[in-house]
């Protein structure tokens, strides 16, 4: 008894760990793949086709069957079957090669869009998922919410008009608020405006915009514009973007008499021994954490200065209303101040 080769034991152990890793690694594990593939069904394909048509018709683009097959990542036969079925149910009308939404089809599509955007709003308000993850999660959830679920969700969230990216959420009667705005890439130099929308597709560009730390609701001024780059100032910092990124950010131009606060800045760039007044909290801080900051005294007009620096750099402690409150850098960057 008790005689065995340690090498054999180790080999068995590593074989088992590799197997467990292949089965259960996040997202790509076999176990998850099998679990997910059994879920994907006709309903999802139908709804994805409807959504695709809806978004394209909104942009005045008309698609044919080939376009649909190329854009969606399902197998061709499944898509063709779904399109036939949809045409039988009069969700779409096929004339020759081009596919159009019928009235009932576009109502259905609107309901999916509503569910998607409401879910993104929910994720933003009530959960801690990263911004980059919202779209993908809503993409899965939109197929699972019934009309009643969506209405309940809407009233829970206070019937919001816009999702966290600034896209309008259709009401249950199909009404859609208009986004008035111009892409940053088309603004002339010197324009002052407020960011109202950041497109979440394509994902690569969205992630780059997020990485630049640009927030919805920030006031910006265009400083420089060349074919290769666009520079604007906002909240005390300068941002340089490629036109393709700038094209995905929409700005509503502000009236001429609004004064652009040149010394408006983010709390994160306040230095030791400087004092400042709070101007407001960015719209990117939502829900409970926003209320908590207000409770702690980060309200308009309050005076703030740095109380303590951290041996590791982050977080910093701010002195506000006679109390020392430590905030992490990412939160401080979403509080706007005006330096004295």
């Amino acid at each position: 008894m008790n005689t065995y080769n340690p090498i054999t034991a180790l080999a068995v152990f590593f074989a088992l760990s590799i197997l467990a890793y292949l089965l259960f690694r996040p997202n790509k594990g076999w176990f998850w793949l099998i679990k997910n593939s059994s879920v994907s069904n006709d309903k999802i394909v139908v709804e994805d086709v409807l959504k695709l048509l809806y978004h394209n018709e909104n942009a005045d683009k008309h698609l044919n069957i080939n376009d649909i097959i190329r854009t969606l990542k399902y197998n061709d036969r499944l898509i063709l079957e779904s399109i036939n079925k949809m045409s039988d149910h009069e969700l779409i009308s096929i004339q020759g090669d081009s596919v159009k939404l019928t009235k009932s089809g576009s109502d259905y599509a609107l309901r999916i869009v509503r569910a998607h955007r409401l879910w993104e709003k929910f994720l933003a308000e009530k959960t801690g998922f990263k911004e980059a993850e919202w779209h993908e999660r809503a993409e899965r959830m939109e197929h699972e919410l019934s009309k009643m679920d969506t209405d309940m969700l809407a009233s829970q969230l206070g019937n919001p008009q816009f999702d966290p990216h600034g896209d309008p959420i259709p009401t249950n009667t199909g009404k859609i608020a208009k986004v008035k705005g111009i892409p940053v890439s088309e603004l002339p130099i010197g324009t002052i405006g407020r960011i109202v929308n950041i497109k979440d597709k394509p994902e690569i560009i969205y992630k780059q915009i997020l990485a630049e730390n640009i927030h919805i609701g920030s006031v910006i001024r265009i400083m420089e514009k060349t074919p290769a780059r666009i520079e604007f100032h906002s909240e005390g910092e300068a941002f340089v973007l490629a036109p393709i990124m700038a094209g995905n950010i929409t700005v509503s131009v502000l009236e001429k008499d609004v004064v652009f606060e040149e010394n408006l800045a983010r709390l994160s760039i306040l230095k030791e021994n400087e004092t400042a007044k709070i101007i407001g909290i960015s719209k990117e801080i939502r829900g409970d954490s926003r209320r908590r900051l207000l409770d702690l005294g980060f309200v308009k007009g309050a005076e703030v200065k740095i109380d303590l620096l951290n041996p590791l750099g982050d977080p910093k402690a701010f002195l506000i209303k006679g109390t020392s409150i430590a905030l992490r850098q990412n939160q401080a960057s979403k509080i706007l101040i005006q330096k004295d």
Partner: protein
Amino acid sequence: MDTKKIDHIISLSNDLRWQIGDEFHDNLAEGIYADAAEIVKDSVHKKDETGAFRIDAKIDKIITSKIWGFPLMFLILAVVLWLTIVGANYPSAMLSGILLDTIHPALKGFASTIGMPWWLDGFLIDGVYLAVAWVIAVMLPPMAIFFPLFTLLEDFGYLPRVAFNLDHLFKLSGAHGKQALTMSMGFGCNAAGIVATRIIDSPRERLIAIITNNFSLCNGRWPTQILIATIFVGALVPASYSGIMSLAAVIGIAVLGMIFMFLVSWGLSKTVLKGEVSTFNLELPPYRPPRFWKTIYTSIIDRTLIVLWRAIVFAAPAGAVIWLISNIYLGDASVASWLIDSLDGFGFLLGLNGVILVAYIVAIPANEIVIPTILMLTVLVTGISAGAGAGVMFELDSVTATGDILRAGGWTLLTAINLMLFSLLHNPCSTTIYTIYKETKSVKWTLVASILPVIMGFVVTFLVAQIWRLLA
């Protein structure tokens, strides 16, 4: 009212809501806050407190400075732990003198005078009473020292600064800065550490803190670590260095626990706990002189006695089980020997042995009785003469004698090191498991918190054993 009018009102309200827009609620709330701030500014007059504030600021500057911040923190933690471990020796010795050496024989004597049958006497006195007495003797003094000290620091205002200093490290592992506090609280007792996670306001970080609290070496485990390190690790070097060597080994295990705490926090926040709500803000209150007696009173009542009571409730049945498995015979061997035999193979694979695994199974209720149980079972299996008979836990006054028994049971340096590792990485005691359930109200997370460390313990001891055998 007819439905037409109701519908009209509803649609009117929807229209109005549409017109005032999304930002209405926020603007209103912020307006109220700003107005309130204005009113306070006009009507409330504060005395000039700059003088007092300046002392605070000076202390803060040192405590959070790049040079002194971290050394001070480790120094204070080390002093607290040292006071606890060394200071607890004397009352512990006294308590065990009374409970184990005086009352236990007296009870036995009383039982035999009234003619109690041997099995009832064994079950109640050698089983239940002895386990409870042991837990009180080992657990009460360190807790009664550690918790008041900790509460004094908290009251003074130092602990929030520790959280402030360490937050960045915790942020990197996806956790909350205040986890630094619950982690150090866990050095006293994991159950108390888990209750303390109530200070973390976001649910995700709180769960992380609860699940990883077990990686703080608690009072019930420090004595095991120190004893085993003294017997086996200290003996590796000349006698004059053995004290330092064994101390270094114990501290090494505690630091390893912290490393595991960070790693597991990171892993949890990247996988199963991804995307729960997370917020961070930490108030750094002004320093104030601690209210000494009140602090001591509340910390002894709130923390020490409640935790001790739970431990006793769980230890009593454990004592009964230990006595029963050593005294109930199946065929020609006791239940304990059967268990030990069947677990020996697995134990060997982990560089441990069957005795240790059985001791850890029956001692789930209280880590304090692991060493006494191991000694009793080793004597039972090897048949050497020591102790007071089957099912009677004991400890020896002399470290050398304890070492002799363990070596007779086939222990090597590998067994000792793996026991130290396994004592760090195994399931929390039942008091802690119960507390986790009470705090999370979730069977799922209680299971995760209980099973995860044991799996890690198996993996780590297994790897160490194999590599050791390859190299040796």
